Structures are given as structure tokens and as C-alpha cells.
């Protein structure tokens, strides 16, 4: 197609209307704004490239060019989304982008030529419908942007340096740490819709405590030397992403503990590194997804789902645990897939036959489904105790 400038703009705006509407629906359904923010960046990048690059340098655009141009725009969108702090999880964001791209291809090659006979002759222009579509897009974007502006939690920036805690977050906000921002004595979150990002916590009973809050995101936080739990979550829904919890200091300290939120939306722990403590990651009566984490040198168990918890433990690395690598206990239902458990040592001093260095244990009525796990250098591989079951896949 040899697009005219207006044809490019008409076609682009027609193609983004549906994704924009979908972004608004997603934002409403998920109580997150990243779909709208992403759609807005996609539109801005596309229109800017149309105006400054494409029209000038691409007189004729063969169909195959849509792919490299799509990749170019994806790079530009990501390049803007990161500094603009768009809270978009990578995989859903990529799915949204490529879904919109596919829709644009279907529209440009099939739907619009069918709907408008002269679409090709007109270089992609949509006649009188073009301005209407542009106005509709702008109205939707402005409305969504206005709502977002009015309802987004404020951003609170924590300056570099050491701040005495405990820091209590009891209103919705986005607490962003500048490089070098440290809180000594812990952070307590009690409000919904809180984000804590790029903050280091030193000491405290719990490094970060989340109590009775939903839609909390803890991202790129680090906790060092908490005396109880590195991150302690009660009656809450959280996403903990790319965290580091190191050397909980107390005898009974744990890395991350999510408990008593089974009736709430699932919580996610992903991409975290937990070193030391009794249990690296533990859940009680919770609905969770634990994936892509690295847990090492724990003194009781590496990863535990217990007390009627339900969830997936996938693609984690558990190394050097004492007694048990991954534990599914007390009537929990656990899907344990793709994990690597190495070097689990027997805890002979405990006198507990369930702690003889098992890579994976299912215990007391629990049901564990195993698939694709790599167990190496453990004293023993897999075991079940007290009416618990193990269902092995590959």
C-alpha cells in the first residue's frame, strides 16, 4: 500500500480503537491502569512515527514491512514505558501489543478494504469516517486519562539515604525509592492499591509487613536482617516481584510468608532471591503462585505451601535446604512443575523421618502434582507421609 499521510493516520486510529476500548475494559476489570497507559503510548508512538518517519521515507509499504515496523514500534513503546513507570507485567503487555498488531493487520488487509471499496485507491484514507474515528479515539483516551488522573494513587518518592522506620503506608500510593533509598526498621502497608518499588529495608521485626490490603505490589525491594519475616503478608493480596530477602536474623525468621488469604484473590511471588531463614517462602491457607524464584540455605524447608493452601510452584531453584526442598503440607493442593531442587541435606538432629533430605515432600493429606522437576544431589528424592499423595507426571 502506498499510504497517504492521512491514510496512515486514519488506518492507525481505526486499528487502535478496539485495543483502546479493550484497555479500558481491562483497566476497569483488573483495577490497574497499565493497559490504558500502554495503549496511549502505542498510539503516541505510532502517530509520531507516521508523521515524522513513515510518510517521509516509505512511499510504498509492502505487507511484509508490517513485521519489522511492528518490532520497531514495540522497541519504542518499551523504551517509553520503562522511564514512564508503566506498571505493566511483561508477558500480558506483550500479548496486548501483539494482539493489537494482529488486529491492525486484519483490519488493514481485510476488514477495511471490504468495508470501503476505495480504501486502497485512497491510500488508506477512510473518507468522512476518518475524522470521526480520530475524535472517538481521542474522546475515549481523554476520558480514560481523566479517570486515571483522578483516581491514580499519588507517587511518593523516597529520597536517597537512610530513613528511620517503621514507615506506615495507610493510604493508596506509589512509594518509589530513589537510588540509595533505605528504610531502617521496616515498612507496614495497611491500605489497598499500594506500590512499593526500589526500596531497601534494613532490620525491623518484619522487613515489609502487609496487613489487610489488596492489590499491593512490592517490586524490586530488598530486605536485609529482619528478625522475624523478611516479607510478612496477612489477609492480603500481593504481587511480590524481583525482590531480594537476605539473612533473616532471628531463629524463627522466614524469607517470605503469605498467610490467611485463601478467600482473597491469588497472590504471586516471582523473580525473588531468598537466602537463609527457616523457610524461604511459606504460605498458610493462601492461594498463591510461586515462580521463578531462587531459594537457598534454609534451615527448615525451601518452599512450603501448607495449611490448605492451593497454588503452583513452578520454575523455582531451591538449593542447599536442610531437611526438605519443597513441601506441600496439611491438605494443601500443590502443582509443582519445572523446579530445580539440589543439595537438600538430611536433618538428622531433628529425629524427624520426614526431614531426611527430601527434594519434595507431600505431607498430611496434601496432594502434590509433579511434572518436569529436576532433583539432583538431594539425600532423597520424593516422599509422601500421613495419607498425602503424589501424582507424578514426566
Amino acid at each position: 500500500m502506498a499510504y497517504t499521510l492521512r491514510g496512515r493516520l486514519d488506518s492507525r486510529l481505526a486499528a487502535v480503537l478496539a485495543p483502546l476500548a479493550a484497555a479500558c475494559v481491562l483497566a476497569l476489570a483488573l483495577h490497574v491502569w497499565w493497559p490504558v497507559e500502554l495503549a496511549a503510548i502505542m498510539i503516541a508512538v505510532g502517530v509520531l512515527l507516521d508523521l515524522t518517519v513513515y510518510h517521509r521515507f516509505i512511499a510504498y509499504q509492502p505487507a511484509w514491512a508490517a513485521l519489522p515496523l511492528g518490532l520497531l514500534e514495540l522497541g519504542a513503546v518499551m523504551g517509553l514505558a520503562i522511564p514512564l513507570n508503566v506498571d505493566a507485567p511483561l508477558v500480558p503487555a506483550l500479548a496486548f501489543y501483539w494482539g493489537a498488531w494482529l488486529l491492525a493487520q486484519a483490519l488493514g488487509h481485510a476488514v477495511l478494504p471490504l468495508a470501503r471499496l476505495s480504501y486502497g485507491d485512497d491510500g488508506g484514507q477512510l473518507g468522512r469516517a476518518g475524522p470521526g474515528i480520530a475524535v472517538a479515539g481521542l474522546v475515549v483516551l481523554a476520558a480514560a486519562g481523566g479517570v486515571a488522573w483522578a483516581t491514580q494513587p499519588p507517587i511518593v518518592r523516597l529520597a536517597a539515604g537512610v530513613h528511620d522506620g517503621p514507615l506506615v503506608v495507610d493510604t493508596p500510593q506509589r512509594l518509589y525509592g530513589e537510588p540509595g533509598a533505605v528504610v531502617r526498621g521496616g515498612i507496614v502497608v495497611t491500605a489497598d492499591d499500594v506500590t512499593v518499588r526500589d526500596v531497601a529495608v534494613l532490620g525491623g521485626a518484619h522487613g515489609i509487613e502487609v496487613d489487610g490490603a489488596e492489590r499491593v505490589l512490592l517490586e524490586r525491594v530488598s530486605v536485609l536482617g529482619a528478625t522475624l519475616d523478611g516479607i510478612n503478608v496477612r489477609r492480603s493480596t500481593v504481587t511480590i516481584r524481583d525482590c531480594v530477602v537476605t539473612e533473616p536474623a532471628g531463629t524463627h525468621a522466614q524469607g517470605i510468608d503469605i498467610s490467611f488469604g485463601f478467600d482473597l484473590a491469588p497472590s504471586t511471588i516471582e523473580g525473588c532471591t531468598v537466602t537463609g531463614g527457616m523457610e524461604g517462602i511459606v504460605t498458610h491457607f493462601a492461594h498463591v503462585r510461586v515462580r521463578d524464584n531462587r531459594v537457598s540455605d534454609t534451615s527448615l524447608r525451601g518452599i512450603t505451601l501448607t495449611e490448605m493452601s492451593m497454588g503452583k510452584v513452578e520454575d523455582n531453584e531451591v538449593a542447599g535446604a536442610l531437611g526438605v526442598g519443597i513441601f506441600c503440607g496439611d491438605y494443601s493442593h500443590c502443582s509443582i512443575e519445572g523446579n530445580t531442587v539440589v543439595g537438600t541435606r538430611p536433618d538428622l538432629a531433628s529425629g524427624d523421618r520426614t526431614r531426611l533430605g527430601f527434594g519434595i515432600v507431600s505431607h498430611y493429606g496434601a496432594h502434590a502434582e509433579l511434572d518436569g522437576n529436576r532433583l539432583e544431589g538431594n539425600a532423597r528424592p520424593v516422599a509422601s507421609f500421613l495419607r498425602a499423595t503424589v501424582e507424578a507426571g514426566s
Partner: protein
Amino acid sequence: MPEPCAIVGGGLAGFVAHATLRKGGLSPAEIAVFGADPDPAAVWRGRAAAIRQRRMRSESDGHCAPTSFPGLAVRAARRRRSLLPLVQTACDRFHPTVAEFLEHVEELRAATGWNESFRAARIRRVRPVDDGFELDGHGVFRHVLLAPGHPGLAFPAELEGDSRAVHAYEPHEYADRVEVVGAGMAAATEWLNALAAGSAVVSVRRREPQRRPLNLPRELFTRRGLAAYHRTGPAERVELLRGYGAPSYPRGHDWDGPVEEARREGRFTVAAWPNGAEQVICATGFKRGFRHDDLLAALVAEHGVETAGRWIVLAPDATVPALTDTERTLALAGAPGQWAFPAADTLVGAKYAARGFLRRVQAWRTR
């Protein structure tokens, strides 16, 4: 009361216009098509067969349906159960076979009710009357599209009446040594045909052909290139159209490989003039200009239609300005429509004229 629409010319340009009007909501009874042969592809088929054409120069959207989608690549993918045609069309490398194109014409002919609209008659005069045009005693029509086709085969003056000369678009075989006059698509096809038949070929040409996938640059097929073209004045546009008439054929090994091999073997040479071969194939296209067409020549002579060089001056939507207003439309499609669309003698050009005509018809119907 005038009838709504008439198409004068039953070839592919008229066929495209009929399909477009049908897509626009007109019934077959509201459209009269005047032509000599009820098969809209009859003339084209004969010419394609004469030059032994197997593939179209046009791409996936080179068909007669009013919408570009689904194109012939989609049909081929479905039929062959292969994604290859779609990949090829994404890279502008898909060229449907002549058989695929003609089969599509047949399907479209049945689907659009072409036979119901067709009237076997040759229209020699178009006479403007109140609210329309009187067509040679066949009635008065409010909106008329003239698609008379090419006005005849062009022979070089020096070969007129030469018994050795045959036009590429006439049935012929190949002598041991043939001279092919011309340097466009038909000439290139004839080089390959004659070489494949074992002949020695002399390409007679006075200028080197241009090499491009379509017969004009791609931007001239859309408003991007047309907008600038439509802004030109008469003198400049005449020069542009003369330039666009230069011969061309696509690049690629399929075209160059056999010629290069024959050149090495001494079976392919280039000359500026015919030089005594036993057969001269004139791949010199068609007569050009409205004066060669009786209907158009009469229209210009009798109604003072504006012309420039050999072209009838048209509005950008391919209508004749002096004879078109809110009550009636006279438009030109096919080769005579070049003033509005430089590639008017292609299928895309036929669609361009047909869409402009449909817009006029619809505007009148919805007043």
C-alpha cells in the same frame, strides 16, 4: 424516464464496473451492459493465449471483484491448502496464473448477474439529452460509463502490409529466426516463447525497457501519487502520460535467465531496426488515443469535449466534466481513462473508474 445505468463495453473494464455497481446495491436490471460478446474475458483471453501468457503481471488484487479482499492469493492458499501464496503476496511476489484469474472471472460473472444485464449491441454514438444520454437507439440512460477497450492493434508504420509481420496478440507460431519489435511485457514474453521454441531472437527496440514489477510506479495506483498527478496542468500531464507509456517488464531471473543464456549462445541479439528475418512479431501494443475509437472520436467532434494531445480531458474521478452534472454522469474506463488514472488500462484502473462512477450514481440516488 431514463434508465439508471449503462456500461458501453463488455470487456473486463465493463465487467469490473458492473461488479462494482452490483456491490453498490444496484440490481442487474438497473444496469445495462452493451457489448459484442457475453463473455467479458473473451478478448483478453484471446490475447493472453496468443502470447502464451501463463501468469499475470498483476498481483493478488489483480482481479475483477469490487473489493480487493479476498484477493487471488487467499483463493490460491485455500485451494492449494498452503500458506505460501499468502507469504508471497506479503512480499509482492504472488502472481496468479491466467487460469486462476479466468476462473475467478467466471465465478464473478455468475455471482453478479452479468448475463441479466448484458445486451448484445454495438453502441456507435452517445448523444447527450435531458437527464441522461441516448445510446444509439437503445434507450436513454442517466449514468453512462464508456469502456470501449483498446481501439485496435498497433503496427509500426514500416511494417504495415508486410507479410512477415504478425502482431503478438494474434495467433502465431515461431520461425527459426524471429524479430520481436517492442520492449514491454508482451515483447519480453515473446522473447521467452520464441527462445523456448528453439528460435533465434532479435529484439528490435529503440530504447531500453524500464524494469519494474507493475507497469507504473506503485504510488501512482493510490492517492499518494495521484494527488500530485491530478495537480498537474494539461501540458505537463501530457508529457507525464507520454513518459508513462514507455515499455517496461518485471525484474527477475524468470525473465533474465533464459535471455542471458540465449545471448551467450548467440541466439539473442538486439537491433534498432528490423533486418530481414523471416518472421517479425510486433509486440507494439495498441493504437493510442481517442481518435482511433469511433465512439470517442464522435463524442469529441460532436459535443466539444475537451482534449489534450491524444487524451480526453477527464475529472479526477474519470468523468467527462462537460457532460457530467448532478443529474447525469458520463465517465470513461479502461485505456481512454488515463487522464484521470495513468494506469487506467489495468484492473486497478478499471476499479478506480468504476468506484468513481458508483459514487456519482449513489450520490444521485440518495439526494
